[in-house]
C-alpha cells in the first residue's frame, strides 16, 4: 500500500469503495471543535478499519453525500467527510 492511494472521503466519487485508514480532524470550516467532530463521527460508526462505500450525492456541488459504513447508511456533508481518510486498495 502506498501513501498515494489514501484520499479524503470528502473527495471521493459516487461508487467509491474503501476502508477507513484514519480520522484526521483539523476542524477547519466545520461548526464544531475538532474533538467533538471526531467523537460524532465515531459514534456514527466511522472508525479505522470500517468499510465504506459512497452511495449517493446531492445535486448542488455533489453535496451532501450518503455513505455506507459497515451496515449503516449515513448522510453527511463533504466538508465533514474531509476528515475521514480512506484507502481504496484496502477494501475487500
Amino acid at each position, binding site marked *: 500500500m502506498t501513501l498515494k492511494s489514501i484520499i479524503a472521503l470528502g473527495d471521493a466519487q459516487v461508487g467509491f469503495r474503501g476502508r477507513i485508514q484514519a480520522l484526521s480532524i483539523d476542524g477547519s470550516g466545520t461548526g*464544531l471543535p475538532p474533538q467533538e467532530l471526531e467523537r460524532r463521527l465515531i459514534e456514527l460508526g466511522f472508525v479505522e478499519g470500517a468499510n465504506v462505500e459512497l452511495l*449517493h450525492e446531492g*445535486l448542488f456541488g455533489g453535496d451532501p453525500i450518503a455513505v455506507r459504513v459497515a451496515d449503516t447508511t*449515513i*448522510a453527511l456533508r463533504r466538508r*465533514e467527510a474531509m476528515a475521514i481518510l480512506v484507502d481504496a486498495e484496502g477494501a475487500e
Partner: protein
Amino acid sequence: MNVATELAPVVALVGNPNCGKTALYNALTGGRQKVANYPGVTVEKKVGRLLTPAGRAIRVVDLPGTYSLRARSPDEEITRDVVLGKLSGELAPDLIVCVGDSSNLRLALRLVLELKRVGRPVVLSLNMMDIARRRRIEIDTDRLSRELGIPVVESVAVRRGGTGALLGEIDRMLAKLPAAGQLQWRAPDAGELRGSQREADRILRATVRSSGQRDRGTAAADAVLLHPVAGIVILLAILFVMFQAVFAWARPLMDTIQDGFAWLGTAVQAQPLPDLLKSFLKDGLISGVGSVVVFLPQIVILFFFILVLEDLGYMARAAFLMDRIMGGAGLHGRAFIPLLSSFACAIPGIMSTRVIDNRRDRLTTILVAPLMTCSARIPVYTLIIGAFIPDSDVWGFVGLQGLVMFGLYATGILGALGVSFVVKRLIWRDAPGEPFMLELPDYKLPRLKSLAIGLWTRATMFLKRAGTTIASMMVLIWFLASFPQPPAGATGPAISYSLAAMLGSLLQPITAPLGFNWQINVALIPGMAAREVAVGALGTIYAIDGGEGAADKIGQAIAGQWSLATALALLAWYVFAPQCASTLAVIRRETGGWKWMWVTFAYMLALAYAAALITNQVARALGAG
C-alpha cells in the same frame, strides 16, 4: 393512580434512532404514540404502565433515540438524564432495555457497552428479528449474551406475542434485582469511543453472520429517490400531489359535514325556544363549530401524508435532498422535518426542532416555522379562494383554486427562506454552520395500526380544540355581535349596534389601507386564539348581519361584500400574521424566555402588514378594488 403502580419499578427503553423502539413501546404498553423512521422524532418523555406475565406492575419509559449518552441535543439530554437518574422528579430506571435493530446492530452494540457502565442491569432486546431473518442474518444470541455479559432476547414489536421473551426476561431480572451498582459512566473521549466501537465490531464478527449486503429494496428505491435530479423532482411532485389531494379528496366529506351542520341549525330553528337562545345555538354555536369541524377531512389527509412519509423512512431522504437548498437560505437540513411538520401545525414543528443540536440553527428554524402554512390557515384560505377564485382549470388539468393555494404555500415558504437568510447572513454571519449528519434508515412499510393511532390522535386533538377553545371563542363572538341589541325601531342590521362593530371601527384607521372592513377587523381579534376561528367569526358576523341562510353560505356573503383587492390582501395578511396565541406560547417555552416570542410576533406582524398593504394597493391600482 394507586401506590403500587406509583412505586412500580421503572424500565427505560434506550436505543439508536430507527431501531423500532417506539413500536416496541407501543406493543408493551398499548400506548398511543406514533412510530416513525426519522431519527429523533420521539421527543417527549413517555411513560406507560403495564402488568408483566408474572403479575408485576412496571412503568416503561420511552426515551429519545441516541447513539451515545454523550448528549448533543436537548433531545438526547433527556435520554442521558433519565438513564443516569439525574432528571428531577424522575426515578432512576431499575432496569435498562437497550433496543437494537437486529439487521443493523453495530452502533447498538457500542451503545450497550456504554450503558453497562451506568451501574444498572441492562438487557439487550434484538428488535425487528423478523426483518433480520428475512434478510438471512444469523445472530448467535447465546454467544452475544456471553460476550456482552448481559441477557439478550429477541423481539418483534409489530407482531402479537412478539414481546413475550422480553417481558419474561424483565420479570426474571426484576425478581432478583441487585442493589444499584456504581455509576462508572462519564462522557467518553474519542479514544474511549474508538476502543468501544472496536470491541463492538469484534463481538459483531463473533456473533453475527450476514451477507453484508444492503437491503435490496432500499438500494433500488434509493437509486431513484436519492438521484440528484430525479430525487428532487420526485420530492416536489410528492409535495404537489399532497396539496392537491388535500383539496380534491376532502371535498365530498366536507360537503357532507357542512350539510349535517346546516341540518342541525334548521332543526334548532324549528324548536319552540326563545329567539335569543335559538340565535345563540344556531348562529353562535352550531355555525361556529361547524365551520371549523368541516376542515377535519383536510387535516386528516395532510397528516396521513406526513405520517406515511415518516414511517416509510422517506423523511430522512427529504432532509438529505433539501440540505443544500435549505443551506443556501441559512437553514440546517435537519430543519426540513420541523418545517414540514409545521405545514400541519407550527406547535409540533417547533417542538421537533429539539433534534437540531446547534442553538442558533434551532432558533432560526423556530423563528420561521410559523410561516409554514399550517392547517389552521386552510379554513381561511379555502373560504376566500372558494368565494373569489373561479373553479376553472388551467392547462386543462390543474385546478385554478388549487394553484392559488399552492401559491400561498409557496409564498409562506419563500418568506421563511428569506427571513432565515437575513437572520443567518446579517445577524449570525460569523457562526459557521452545524454539520449535517443523519442516518438514512432502510425503508419500511408503514404499519396500518400505528398510522391509525397517529391519525386518530391528530383528529381528536383538532376536534378537542374545536370543541373547547374554538367553541368558547364563538360564544364570545356571538355575544359581542349580539349585544347591545338594537334600539326599538332601528332600521340598520342588528350587528351594527353591537360591541363587535365598535371594536371593528376602532381598528378601522389602522387596517383601512389594507382594504379591511370592520367585519374583518372583528374576525381577526378572536383569530388570535386560533387562525381558523376567524372563519367561524365571519360566519357569526354575517349570519347575524345577513339574516336567514347566510350562515351556511359565508362564502357567498363575503363574495358579495368584499372587493377582490380586500380578499387578496386578507390572504396575504394570513400568510404572515402571527395569528396564533398557542404558537407564541410554545416559542416562549422552547426558547426559554419572552425575547424570541416577541421577536417572532413583531417581525411577523410587520411582514403581514406590509404584504397586505402592498397586495391591496397593487390590486386596486390594477382595477380589482
